[in-house]
């Protein structure tokens, strides 16, 4: 966060000192891109907020904690794919899960699907890549994440 701010500030100052017109053109382009995507982005954020209310983190812990064996792995993969939880919540949650007895394999599958698959963000992804490609990418990532999670389970 601080890094991004510093980098942006330096880039902006350097650009402005070198060529004012070009800098303004770049800022205009960036602003237009941001405003174009903002409505779709807000829609996704609303979806995500409602989802997190419907499936709060304590319920998530409960579901993941109860599941064992393949049922546990399946529910972890499903929950991980649908959820969009920022890292600053997901990782502490993962630490709690392990302490409450969830197997590393289930945790690994949850974390990898959480990162690599984004079902709720599909409408946004489709705006850039089209629906077919977005669905294909997420499907491939789902199996990839499952594979990574299962492999990790062997070594953890």
């Amino acid at each position: 966060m601080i890094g991004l701010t510093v980098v942006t500030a330096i880039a902006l100052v350097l650009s402005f000192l070198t060529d004012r017109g070009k800098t303004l053109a770049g800022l205009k382009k960036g602003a237009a891109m941001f405003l174009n995507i903002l409505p779709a982005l807000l829609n996704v954020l609303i979806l995500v907020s409602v989802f997190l209310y419907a499936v709060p983190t304590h319920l998530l812990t409960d579901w993941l904690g109860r599941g064992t064996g393949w049922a546990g792995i399946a529910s972890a993969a499903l929950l991980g794919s649908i959820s969009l939880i920022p890292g600053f919540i997901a990782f502490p949650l993962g630490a709690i899960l392990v302490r409450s007895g969830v197997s590393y394999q289930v945790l690994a599958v949850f974390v990898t699907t959480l990162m690599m698959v984004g079902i709720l963000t599909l409408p946004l992804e489709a705006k850039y890549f089209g629906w077919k490609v977005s669905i294909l990418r997420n499907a491939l990532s789902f199996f990839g994440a499952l594979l990574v999670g299962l492999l990790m389970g062997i070594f953890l």
Partner: protein
Amino acid sequence: MKSKAIAAMKKYGFILLFVIFIAVSLLKSFPAGREIGKNFRMFFLEMILILPLMFILIGLFDVWVPREKIARHVGPGSGSWGIFWVILLAMLQAGPLYASFPVAALLWKKGCSVRNVFVYLGAFTTLKIPMLAFEIGFLGLKFSLLRALFSLPVFIGIGYLLALVLKNRNFAVKEPG
């Protein structure tokens, strides 16, 4: 005129409904609405702290960096070095998955190959350094190291696979608008 209004409703209708819902919930102390509003505030803050800065960088990058330069390093025929560069770029970034889409669109516009666009997305989801630091802190070095190690060949493979599938299909990353 009428079709314009319908288009605007399609674009902003859901947001408008949500704003009304939250406003009523706050006035009537409706707990579900307040809870959802609190969630939205968190996600909105995460977005608004990162994306505007990113789009400033994207805009500046767009006007300053010539297409030939990017195409040569990460374009078709850039080989393993192309993969290396897009992974490095992704690792230096932060933010949720959707923050990677505009960058992918920019890379594409500047001549990045299909494979490298998807390798970039894969690296963004799994190898961002700020996220790794956080993950190591909570889940341990072994967990993160194993995850990174296994993810790397998987998302590179997905990049190759998608490039193969999309070959000769007029695939393009669009700029929404």
